[in-house]
């Protein structure tokens, strides 16, 4: 096995920011808004770096797709301990329509190119909440997948993944190479220390375009409209069960 792990990191609006919809309802305001690495991607990076520290794997490569600013996100991964970065440059309209399908095509192409042993992604991004990229990447590569991982360990040439599912916890053993997506309780990401940020400056970030990987990133989806969630309406208090029933039948619910 190559000992190389690919980690995808996405630049999203910071979780603490109050989201506002653009007046034309086309999308969300991003200009001048604080961005940071998707929290689940942080957990993914942390897991990969931990594996390297335990000498289970040899190299961690951080990948991000997007405009120039995506490099900041890659640098954060480098500061956390990734060895090098790959920036797949996508800008303008193409960036706005970038989604799980396109990303998974890119990740699959890179996984093959880099002969990765593992691809670790966050389970979903906090901006679109798609929860699809990991699964699509595995399918395109025809690799096993361990999604919603809350625990990952190596067992010989296989990987044991404990998955958080609705019913509880499910443990599976899969072959490598494989795709893993990180869930919340997998680990607690480390703070990037200032000396590590400084060391990260020396690490390399390779630049490329989707075309270089032979990937077509045209979107199959069109966003029609973006709206804020409806304002919460006040509830109504009723005195008796009869009132309740009549209100419910008025609303056509019984």
């Amino acid at each position, binding site marked *: 096995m190559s000992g190389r792990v690919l980690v995808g990191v996405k630049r999203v609006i910071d979780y603490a920011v109050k989201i506002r919809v653009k007046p034309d309802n086309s999308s969300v305001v991003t200009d001048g808004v604080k961005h940071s690495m998707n929290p689940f991607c942080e957990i993914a990076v942390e897991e990969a770096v931990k594996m390297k520290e335990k000498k289970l794997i040899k190299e961690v490569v951080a990948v991000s797709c997007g405009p120039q600013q995506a490099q900041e996100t890659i640098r954060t991964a480098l500061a956390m301990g990734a060895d090098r970065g790959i920036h797949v440059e996508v800008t303008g309209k193409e960036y706005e329509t970038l989604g799980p399908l396109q990303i998974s095509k890119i990740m699959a192409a890179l996984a093959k190119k880099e002969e990765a042993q593992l691809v670790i992604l966050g389970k979903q991004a906090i901006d679109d909440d798609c929860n699809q990229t990991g699964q699509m990447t595995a399918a395109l590569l025809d690799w096993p997948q361990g999604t919603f991982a809350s625990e990952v360990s190596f067992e010989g040439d296989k990987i044991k993944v404990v998955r958080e599912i609705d019913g509880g916890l499910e443990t599976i053993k899969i072959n490598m190479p494989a795709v893993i997506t990180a869930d919340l309780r997998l680990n607690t990401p480390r703070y990037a220390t200032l000396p590590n940020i*400084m060391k990260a400056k020396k690490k390399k970030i390779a630049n490329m375009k989707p075309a270089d990987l032979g990937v077509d990133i045209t979107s199959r989806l069109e966003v029609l409209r973006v709206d804020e969630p409806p304002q919460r309406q006040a509830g109504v208090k009723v005195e008796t069960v009869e009132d309740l029933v009549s209100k419910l039948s008025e609303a056509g619910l019984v």
Partner: protein
Amino acid sequence: MLLRKVSQSSALCGSILRIPPVLSGGQRHAGAVVAVQNVRLYASQAAEAVLEKPAAVGSDTAGKVEMKTVAAESKSFAVNIFKGQIATAQVFPYPSALNEEQEQFLRELVGPVGKFFEEVNDPAKNDALEKVEDHTMEGLKEMGAFGLQVPADLGGLGLSNTQYARLVEIVGSHDLGVGITLGAHQSIGFKGILLFGNPAQKKKYLPKLATGEHLAAFCLTEPASGSDAASIKTTAVQSPCGKYFTLNGSKIWISNGGLAEIFTVFAKTPMKDPKTGEMKDKISAFIVEKSFGGVTHGPPEKKMGIKASNTAEVYFDNVRVPADCLLTEVGGGFKVAMNILNNGRFGMAAALSGTMKGVITKAVDHAANRTQFGNKIHNFGAIQEKMARMTMLQYVTESMAYMISGNMDSGATEFQIEAAISKIFASEAAWTVTDECIQIMGGMGFMKDAGVERVMRDLRIFRIFEGTNDILRLFVALNGFQNAGNQLKSLQKALKNPIVNAGLLAEELTKRAKRKAGLSTGLTLQGSVHPELAQSGELTTKAIEQFGAVIEELLIKHGKKIIDEQFVLKRVADTAIDLYAMVVVLSRASRSLSQGNASAQHEKMLCETWCVEAHDRIMQDIKRLRSSQSRQLFKNLRAISSAVVENGGVVAPHPLGF
């Protein structure tokens, strides 16, 4: 119409300024100009003038005169206003001292540092425990916060002053106790090694200091020597073989005193005067390791604020300090001390601008949400005035901090007056702003949980340590006077050869004539200041002209005795501070306007409002400095003070008679 006033004194012993007899009017061309002769002190020694007893100055300082100060043009804005001149090099345009790489790096640092202080550091806990929590200290060390300015090849981050200021601002906005722990360590504790250490010393000490494995402390103050630093009594006697010094003495109120492993200690070393052969006591600076033995410390002091910071007495009992632990040379200690303090001052302004920002946010949050009398209170004028003033004070402080750090990073060597001004301004502004924040918040502000009373308690010390604001005011004024006096001395020289210098002399004549007549002397900020701020620029220019005039008048009136006229010096300093404040906001707002920033119009308003009020204050002070009524007032103040001292308390008997 040139001024001719005699102010001579034959008492030269310990004098700082000497005024010779005036040249009579008919002697040369252009009448008499009183000149100041033999001004002997340059920048750092001006501090000496204030702090050292006259006996200690002695005649050997004459030998140390840097003659170039007399002739060289100073680039410092503050120095030049005392001569009624505007030196724009260091103030316009507003410096941008970060290249692309430095800026990008800094942006990457700001996030993690802020996150750490929001999520890990608990200021209330630190205050209650009266120490920085252990896991927080560990986290800070891991984060690299203890070696921000140590060169990267010695294990630090190698940050420039501007980058350092930006990070220190974050610390200041969250926890000043931690700020002082960090600052006492790197801003003054081991700064001496950074600035003055030889390569061997740097290599030996900096790596462990950078990681925080060793903490550092700055040891100058003693029970009997605070502001009067030159009077310290700790001794370091060199061994006959010359290989080591024996250190004896005690220091008080040393930040990190109970935690440090490495101490920068200032002590008196007896040394032979090369000229006279007599033994003199000069201050020397040493790197002292706790491991040398004989270094002990007292328990942590119980303080009003910055409780998390360790403050303790440090005792040196026959400590053997190797000679190669000397910083610079024997007798060079005072300069080391002054330079260390001078070098770290901008950091204080940066930290406090962060503190004010944080506190203003709390005040705004309260004012925007609190309803009284059927309205949100921010709609009432009384609150609006408070908020506006708080904002202006923060804007000025921030502008000063980054202007000075920018100047330092661009290689400026003359910034000591500006640094002193920024420390005075920042510490007083922060106090006022926090006080007003508590006022806006009302009873809530007084409660511990709101977190503002702690900031207030933390802030009080900032007007006291690292040079009390009172001493720094004297420093600003005297330093300015000395430089202005130098110019007069150059004029005197020019007078000796009037034909060659006819042009210069005529110029000087005309300038004074115009000033006296209240006309503009051609001084202008046009071209430096954005056209939309022209009016504020005008106010500043007028103020500088009048300031230059009154300085000259005062020099002539008082001569060398100006150093004792502390009532005068305080007002002179206040004016200089206001002038620098005006110019920094003019510079920053001009840049915003030129760059078309979204906030440019708001900044213009801040600038204009500030300048109008500052101009008024300045003109008032200048008027008072010239009036005979204030002389009477000063006399009264002096007399009241004497009476109270003599009486051991208030003099007037109780209105009830008992």
